[in-house]
């Protein structure tokens, strides 16, 4: 057995390529929901995705959720939603979890474990006063906390450390990072649900208050309430529905931490999850027509773009400058909904909205001002947790059938 090369048919058997489709995608329009519970928001997202797909609640036989779901794993929400799943998965890799869920759902469908997998995310960090400059709440017994909490790591400074090192190593500038926000804001103008719809300039970003050097306020994503849901289904089911068919082609996942004390902030987990996804999908970065790139902060985008191979390591600053991420203008249209920087970052977890906008692009249903013409190959990339210490990375590649 060992040493034998896999022939093409065995390779296909061991892959999720063309084994599942995304048939439903729904982004909750709310950005502030003080009068709703998190569970209700999950349910509203589930309803939205089912209506989008043309499926019914009783069709769902797989359920996926992560740490934003109230209760123990999937138990509480499956019961609340009235589901009787025969396959469940509550993998949590922070904001990237929902991309992992799409991959795991495709695997489960390929193995016959379910036919219609529902993924939900929702949260109310805005109503609950969450902030990127407050200590992150983590479970008791988290092993790194005693060694780090006295130094006041908060979300923003754990990304700022990566940005500072990137600038030191590669000469990346604040102006270049600001271009990422400018591109997101250019797109958000056309999204009526976006939290921030005003166009901004590079100078606006640089003039905004310094939160944690070198990240300004406008380098940071929004804090918003809301949620989203996806339906991953068997290809025969997707083809029976009245919606454009979006195939899952490949996926990769990774956890990157402090490397036992050999800390290296020059790359993100996308350097590991990306190549796995491209290999499975059988495509190259240069073929991707649209990319949803997790944008908790501008630096997150820049590093993932390098790590996914859209440009050489260290040249991300030059790559993102001068509108290169703006749809219709640049080479790599990104986050055409406005992304986490301008549109929405529900539950402080932006992974599901990344997949949703990629699905809109592949269906040709993005806003006409930002729609990529004939978009048939798209990528979604998530980084959840903290870029400067521990994060989960997930890469997902999809095509229009």
């Amino acid at each position: 057995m060992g040493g034998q090369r896999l022939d093409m048919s065995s390779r296909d058997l061991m892959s999720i390529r063309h084994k599942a489709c995304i048939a439903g995608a729904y982004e909750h329009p709310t950005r502030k929901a003080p009068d709703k519970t998190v569970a209700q928001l999950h349910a509203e997202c589930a309803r939205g995705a089912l209506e989008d797909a043309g499926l019914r609640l009783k069709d769902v036989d797989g359920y996926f959720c992560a740490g934003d779901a109230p209760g123990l794993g999937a138990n509480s929400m499956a019961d609340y939603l009235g589901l009787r799943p025969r396959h469940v998965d509550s993998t949590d890799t922070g904001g990237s979890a929902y991309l992992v869920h799409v991959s795991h759902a495709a695997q489960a469908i390929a193995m016959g474990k379910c036919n219609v997998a529902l993924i939900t995310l929702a949260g109310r960090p805005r109503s609950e006063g969450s902030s990127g400059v407050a200590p992150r709440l983590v479970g008791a017994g988290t092993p790194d906390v005693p060694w780090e909490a006295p130094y006041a790591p908060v979300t923003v400074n754990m990304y700022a450390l990566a940005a500072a090192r990137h600038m030191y190593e590669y000469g990346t500038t604040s102006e270049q990072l600001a271009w990422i926000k400018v591109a997101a804001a250019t797109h958000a103008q056309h999204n009526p649900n976006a939290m921030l719809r005003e166009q901004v300039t590079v100078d606006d970003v640089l003039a905004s208050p310094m939160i944690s050097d070198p990240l300004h306020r406008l380098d940071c994503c929004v804090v918003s309430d809301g949620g989203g849901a996806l339906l991953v289904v068997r290809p025969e089911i997707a083809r029976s529905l009245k919606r454009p068919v979006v195939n899952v082609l490949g996926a990769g996942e990774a956890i990157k931490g402090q490397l036992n004390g050999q800390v290296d902030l020059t790359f993100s987990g996308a350097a590991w999850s990306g190549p796995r996804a491209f290999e499975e999908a059988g495509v190259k970065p240069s073929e991707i027509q649209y990319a949803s790139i997790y944008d908790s902060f501008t630096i997150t985008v820049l590093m993932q773009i390098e790590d996914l191979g859209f440009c050489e390591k260290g040249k991300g600053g030059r790559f993102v400058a001068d509108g290169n991420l703006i749809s219709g203008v640049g080479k790599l249209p990104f986050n055409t909904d406005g992304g986490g920087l301008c549109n929405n970052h529900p539950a402080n977890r932006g992974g599901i909205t990344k997949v949703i906008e990629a699905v809109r692009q592949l269906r040709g249903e993005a806003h006409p001002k930002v729609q990529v013409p004939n978009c048939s190959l798209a990528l979604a990339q998530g980084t959840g947790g903290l870029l400067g210490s521990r994060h989960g990375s997930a890469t997902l590649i999809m095509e229009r059938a």
Partner: protein
Amino acid sequence: MTTMYQDRPLGSAVHDAATEPFFAATASGSLRVKTCVSCRKPHWYPRPLCPYCLGDTEWSDVTGKGEIYSVSVTRRAGPTPYAIAYVRLDEGVTMLSNIVDCDLDSLRIGQRVQVVFKPAEDGTMIPMFAPDPG
């Protein structure tokens, strides 16, 4: 711009089986790391089992000297600005810390630093770093 270091409340340290020998050493002014008794590699943060091979580990004192790998002055997370940093110790491991007792705006990546100890609310001595006078 000048942002002089000011003390800020550090809260209480977490005392458990993993941290107790470490804080016993910081109380007498020593910084220690863990090294594997099998593969001999040092690691950070300290664990009882080696993250390279799951071998048993032992404490060893380090010089407390190193250089700044990355640094960020956090200005909007409370009333007192502070410099969070990764410090690469001369012994080869990199730890999260704060840089103190200096003008925070003068800090640069690559700068030499030396360990100092600041008291937490419960009196536990927390290792931080200050520019090395040379």
